[in-house]
């Protein structure tokens, strides 16, 4: 269940498109809208994103051990294929 994690912003179109694509692929994922977090929780998650993607940009998609920065269909396909 926690194999796929999407760090996103609620207002970001690339995040929205990436989530839509994952939905179309029929996979389950956990999504965090970082812009909706505050305080310590936000700090913790920003740190988590930074460790996976030093640019702290969105979406940052983690599929197993693969980190995909931005909405790249081909990279998502590739990472899902390795299941």
């Amino acid at each position, binding site marked *: 269940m926690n194999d796929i994690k999407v760090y996103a*912003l609620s207002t*970001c*179109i690339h995040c929205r498109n990436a989530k839509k694509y994952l939905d179309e692929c029929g996979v389950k994922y956990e999504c965090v809208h970082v812009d909706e977090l505050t305080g310590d929780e936000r700090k913790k998650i920003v740190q988590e994103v930074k460790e996976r993607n030093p640019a702290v940009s969105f979406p940052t998609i983690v599929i197993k051990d693969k980190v995909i920065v931005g909405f790249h269909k081909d990279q998502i396909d590739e990472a899902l294929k390795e299941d």
Partner: protein
Amino acid sequence: MDAKQLYEMLKKVQEPKGYYFNKDMDMTMPLLESLLTNKERFGYMACPCRLANGEYEADKDILCPCVYREADVQEYGACFCALYVSKEFNDGTIEKQVVPERRPPEKILF
């Protein structure tokens, strides 16, 4: 103001400067709506594709149009959000690609 009005208003100002709205309205309209959402949330139109700090001074670089737009449109034909693009981008004469983040992560404070 709604997204359509914002579109008309900004188009008049930005097009003469060489910045065009992405002709893909499934991108442009939601982005303009998100700019209005951020205006409501923060009091200013912070970039919807970036993590805003929520304080005007700390988000100055990502007030739309952000300071990174010029370099990104020049290099990739589109800004980070792909809201503003070059004429060539809309004409389809350059390859569309994912624009990497240019904003330094240190700018995220909160």
